[in-house]
């Protein structure tokens, strides 16, 4: 069997195996949300300022909120089985459309943040490992400890203060300059400029995580016998470092990166709110405030899909990086 077919088979099998997981996530989330006080009708009534018992009852009946919880769950699941994520009364559109509208923005942010985290984290970690015990190591250690312990929203605000307000280099929020009329390359650059600060904020914690992990992994691999073999061949320090040490050291880092997708999505809620980024995180945040549970369940479902897909990708990546791991 060719390796491409084996990979495809593995993907299909893992995908099928994920279905019960996703179902469990949906049901668990559904009940968790029921625990929160109030519902969409309360919020709508509160916003309108005045509502009678009668109009509240009508609203609940229209939204299906007067049904027993289990019946609501049944309705949601049967919708889901037909491929529908339900309807959002707030946005007056199907949840799937709403999510698809926001998804690209969040995915871009996610990839950029993970990219920053991976590249910067691995670079810093390698620098630390190669200078273990000397001042570059100590300085970066302190820096990573800071990034590790300072909350993301605060860093985000400070970055806005520094780069947007004091220096004026980068925009403080949004996804693109409004009514700029940019096209082509200008549009891409404009979007990138808007993405830098939120992506950086989102990635800082993970830069610290990867840096520390890479440091440990590189130091461990550098002690291995095959590194001595590589040196005995007369290879330069650079070749030994990249071809022989780093590739082996990346294995534990990629494992963790896969697990972090979920964490990054969680962080996106905060970061998207701070930077008024029109993505899924902010949609989820608004959905919580408005008790718009169809939207929230949809976002959570999609997030779990993203995490599952990311983990499948990491499995493939690892099998590619390390031939001892077989795709099965």
């Amino acid at each position: 069997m060719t390796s491409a077919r084996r990979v495809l088979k593995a993907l299909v099998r893992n995908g099928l195996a994920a279905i019960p997981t996703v179902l469990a996530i949906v049901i668990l989330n559904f009940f968790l949300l029921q625990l929160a006080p109030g519902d969409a009708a309360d919020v709508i009534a509160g916003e309108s300022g005045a509502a009678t018992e009668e109009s509240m009852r009508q609203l609940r009946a229209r939204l299906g909120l007067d049904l027993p919880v289990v019946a609501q769950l049944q309705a949601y699941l049967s919708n889901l089985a037909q491929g529908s994520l339900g309807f959002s009364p707030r946005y007056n559109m199907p949840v799937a459309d709403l999510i698809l509208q926001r998804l690209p923005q969040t995915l871009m942010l996610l990839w950029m943040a993970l990219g920053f985290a991976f590249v910067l984290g691995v670079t810093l970690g390698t620098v630390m490992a190669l200078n273990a015990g000397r001042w570059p190591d100590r300085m970066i250690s302190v820096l990573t400890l800071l990034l590790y312990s300072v909350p993301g929203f605060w860093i985000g605000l400070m970055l806005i203060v520094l780069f947007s307000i004091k220096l004026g280099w980068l925009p403080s929020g949004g996804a693109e300059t409004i009514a700029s009329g940019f096209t082509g390359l200008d549009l891409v650059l404009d979007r990138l400029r808007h993405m830098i600060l939120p992506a950086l904020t989102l990635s800082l914690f993970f830069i610290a995580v990867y840096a520390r992990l890479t440091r440990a992994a590189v130091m461990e691999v550098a002690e291995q016998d095959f590194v001595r073999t590589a040196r005995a061949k007369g290879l330069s320090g650079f070749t030994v470092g990249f071809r022989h040490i780093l590739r082996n050291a990346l294995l534990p880092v990629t494992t963790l990166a896969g697990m972090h997708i979920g964490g990054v999505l969680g962080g996106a809620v905060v970061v998207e709110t701070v930077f008024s980024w029109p993505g899924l995180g902010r949609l989820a945040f608004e959905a919580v405030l408005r008790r718009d549970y169809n939207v929230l369940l949809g976002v959570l479902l999609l997030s779990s899909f993203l995490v599952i897909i990311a983990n499948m990708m990491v499995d493939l990546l690892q099998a590619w990086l390390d031939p001892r791991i077989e795709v099965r």
Partner: protein
Amino acid sequence: MTVPLLEVHDLTIAFPAAWPVRNLSFSVAGGETVAIVGESGSGKSLTALALMRLLPGAARISSGRIDFVGQDLVTFSEPAMRKVRGARLAMIFQEPMTSLNPVLTIGAQIVDVLRLHENLSRRAARARAIELLDLVRVADPHRRIDDYPHRLSGGMRQRVMIAIAVACGPRLLIADEPTTALDVTIQAQVLDLLDGLRRDLGMGLLLITHDLSVVGQWADRVIVMYAGCKVEEGVPDVILHRPRHPYTEGLLAASPRTAEGSSYRDGLLREIRGSIASALGEQGCPFRPRCPKAAPACTLAPPPAVVVQPGHLAACPVLNPRQARDAVA
């Protein structure tokens, strides 16, 4: 005797607070197999790494010369040394299981060294790598070349290591306990292979081992090391059957008898009392605290190796009381 390929003069290796190899001198001629034997901690592996200038972080060569093909390697810069390593001077290691990079095919690891030193094209290097695998008698080299190390047995991996080492036709091959991790039948095959390559490629072979049975069969000359010093040197026949130094005598008494008709049941193996750690800080002969023949003269100074008969050196003040006194005076 031919002009020595490698001449080590008074090599001393220093850690911040210890000297694991002291004033070591020996030579290896082209086409010759020299074995260095000694127990763990005697400094044999450090000596090998020092020759490659690959000493671990804290260790350095504090004095001495390593003349290799007429040039002193101690004076070489790191870039100059990189041109020597893997090309004219190669080394294989004790642990074949971990000495190959697990994420690269064996072919890639052989091609690595060929492209670095021989300036071959990718295709030519691959063709040469297949030849090399054939040379070290890896069956089915065309298929094996794309295998990853974990698909190979220990003996096969050591063959691949040897292929890497001899890829660029080195003048001297250092083999640091090449068979210690392998089982006995594979040991003989690997040593046969090394011996054949030495003959065919006309290279010197420095065999580092703690296995005396290996020495008798494969070495042209034996150097016995104890606590970083050469205590005895000679041809295997003399060292194994008529040793003069008490340490060598002890070492032989502690090895299973392998002669025809003998059995391990013929007598108990004798141990050398104490441990090599007692050599630490010893003023005179490093073996004195464990030596059954120790005499007052032994505390004076590290005994120099002196010729006890042509081609046989031993460093023991009791054997050569007069010379030892002369050396002190």
